[in-house]
């Protein structure tokens, strides 16, 4: 009888559908999680819920108009996205921008990186269940957004870089505000460490979780702090300097552990490096034009152009194929999050559901950057 019953019981695969609406996917990412009890057996990300067809839209837009679309890819590193397209166009046209523009762009990029990492930090804490971190991170990020708003007129979708320069000159208050911010933030960052980094529960949950080897990081094309935590030297700022990165001293944060805690620590360390870069530049912003002379209608010469920049999440590549008209023939954005996402399954197999959330938040996913 009992044998008979056992035969009748069917064991089904326990597939939990995380998303597209789920608190920890930070957007409309859907994960089909195959579970065995608490253990994750397989994760299949399903993307495309917020695909906006930016690559197709660019084919019918003029070059200066493309830039504002890139704000909407990785909205947390909007300035770096703008900068990438602007640099690519300048590169193709052989336009030399003034030193002032270069320094402004670098400063803005580093502020943006800080803002992005702050948001990542507070969301990471929230995913781990420490809700208070969320408010502390946002509190500090607000200061950077105010700086942006004062200079660029927008907080998130900056659209600040234009081909040949920047949209506005720096606001007179800019230097004062940034100095205030760096002073304040250097004081607050140790608090971040006290609250979350050193916490025994946090350490227990992250150290040794989801390790990614250097070889795998290169093979999967995992860049940014995520890749650098595994030892993959992929900092474009260091290896292919653009804007003013060749004139500042900073360290490329390279770690060897490559686990969740390593990725966490890499970002915390990067915040210090960003503060260093800002400190080096903020007092010597050279005078000059904030916008180089450009033609009314920008036409790129025939050919293909590629520009790499380092966003807060990794390497962004802009590939423009031009046929000499005022619209590009084909634009491709090699977005960092698109490549970083797919390593998730590799990292999470055999771990628990709670770990899935932790690993996902250290990959620092921004969904519109996947879907573009």
């Amino acid at each position, binding site marked *: 009888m009992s044998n008979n019953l056992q035969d009748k019981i069917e064991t089904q695969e326990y597939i939990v559908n995380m998303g597209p609406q789920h608190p920890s996917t930070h957007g409309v990412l859907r994960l089909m999680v195959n579970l065995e009890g*608490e253990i994750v057996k397989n994760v299949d990300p399903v993307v495309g819920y917020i695909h906006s067809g930016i690559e197709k839209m660019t084919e019918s837009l003029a070059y200066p108009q493309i830039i504002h679309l890139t704000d909407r890819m990785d909205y947390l590193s909007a300035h770096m996205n703008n900068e990438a397209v602007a640099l690519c166009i300048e590169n193709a046209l052989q336009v030399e921008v003034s030193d002032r523009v270069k320094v402004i762009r670098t400063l803005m990029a580093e502020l943006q990186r800080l803002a992005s990492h702050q948001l990542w930090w507070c969301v990471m804490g929230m995913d781990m269940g*420490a809700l208070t971190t969320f*408010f502390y991170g946002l509190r500090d990020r607000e200061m950077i957004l105010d700086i942006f708003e004062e200079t660029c007129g927008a907080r998130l979708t900056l659209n600040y870089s234009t081909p040949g320069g920047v949209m506005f000159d720096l606001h007179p208050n800019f230097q004062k505000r940034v100095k205030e911010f760096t002073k304040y933030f250097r004081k607050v960052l140790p608090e971040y460490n006290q609250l979350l980094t050193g916490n025994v529960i946090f350490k227990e949950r992250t150290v040794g979780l989801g390790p990614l080897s250097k070889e795998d990081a290169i093979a999967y094309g995992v860049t940014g702090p995520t890749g650098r935590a595994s030892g993959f030297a992929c900092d474009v700022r260091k290896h292919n300097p653009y804007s003013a990165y060749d004139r500042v001293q900073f360290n490329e944060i390279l770690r060897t552990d490559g686990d969740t805690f390593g990725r966490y620590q890499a970002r915390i360390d990067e915040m210090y490096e960003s503060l260093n870069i800002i400190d080096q530049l903020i007092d010597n912003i050279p005078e000059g034009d904030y916008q180089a002379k450009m033609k009314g209608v920008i036409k790129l010469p025939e050919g293909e152009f590629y520009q790499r920049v380092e966003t807060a999440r990794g390497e962004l590549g802009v590939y423009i194929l031009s046929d000499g008209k005022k619209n590009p023939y084909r634009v491709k954005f090699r977005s960092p999050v698109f490549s970083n996402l797919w390593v998730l399954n590799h990292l999470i197999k055999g771990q628990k*559901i709670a770990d899935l959330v932790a690993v996902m938040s250290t990959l620092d996913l921004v969904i519109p950057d996947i879907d573009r």
Partner: protein
Amino acid sequence: MAFDIYDFTTLTSSIHQSLSESLPPLAVEMIEWTLVGLSMLIFVALFGLILVYLERKVCALFQQRLGPMRVGKWGLLQTIADFVKLLMKELITPNRADKFLYNLAPFIVIIVTFMAIAAIPFAKGLQALDFDIGVFYVSAISSLGVIGILLAGWASNNKYSLIGAMRSGAQIISYELSVGLTLITMIIFAGTMQISGIVDAQASGWFIFRGHIPAIIAFIIFLIAGTAETNRGPFDLAEAESELTAGFHTEYSGIKFAFFFLAEYVNLFIVSAMATVLFLGGWQPLHFGSFEGFNQVMDFIPPIFWFFGKVMFIIYMIMWFKWTFPRLRVDQILTLEWKYLLPVNLFNILLMTLIVLMGWHF
């Protein structure tokens, strides 16, 4: 009707007498039970609302926010507005849910919390049930709540709910052990399981001072295990918002959800009240050896304020835990219990027994 804020036995006995004069004993019994039940009901509803408001304000202050500010002065009426909203919401039952169990679960949870609250001594003479095994009764009843959570998770026909319920089951079964062992530690010290007896024994000094090292260790363990018992703070795996959306009560809406919500806060009160009774002297005021003037000032504060002051302090501590720490993972919760709390607890019992035997306490 005699009323004495320092001793409620006069009030209760005068009510009993005035009723007995005109009514047969059975009717007196019935009326008294109804009165007690009603006052408990009102207390739970009111205190739940106050606790929810407090939690929102406290967490807002931890997070540098203002918290509810709109409804009433400083948002004082916010929770009442929320309660009215919850009352008016549609009760949704998922299509393929087990209807009977699904509807039963919130009632189990709320009834169990009511049963436990009966044994809590609010002040001298203000206690509904005073068994000679009171501590045992509270610990036995409070572990029944997990049945409601398990039923809710299973009957919802939701995968998140089921995972949450299973986690909750594993967690509460483990932490029941720690709570029980700390209770035993303190029972050894008090020499009685009767709650009123335990409180009376602390008239000369709270157990946490008199029992020194083992009592402090037991207090810390009780706080940790108690937080876990209430499914709160770093132990809120059953709900685990960022993992399981809302865990076992994902599918509940309206007043059924409110029952779970209320039960969580009443459980919080029960755990804090038990900690108060066992470690902080229940409603006994704070006395320091021979400082007569100080002791008299302390005596002047009515016991009911002493009791609620201590309870609020412990509730504040538990809220502080919740709004500071990240959540533990399910295997770490079990590790913490079985590898750390249990051995320390067992050792602590030995230590306490030794101290009681040798009379090394104050």
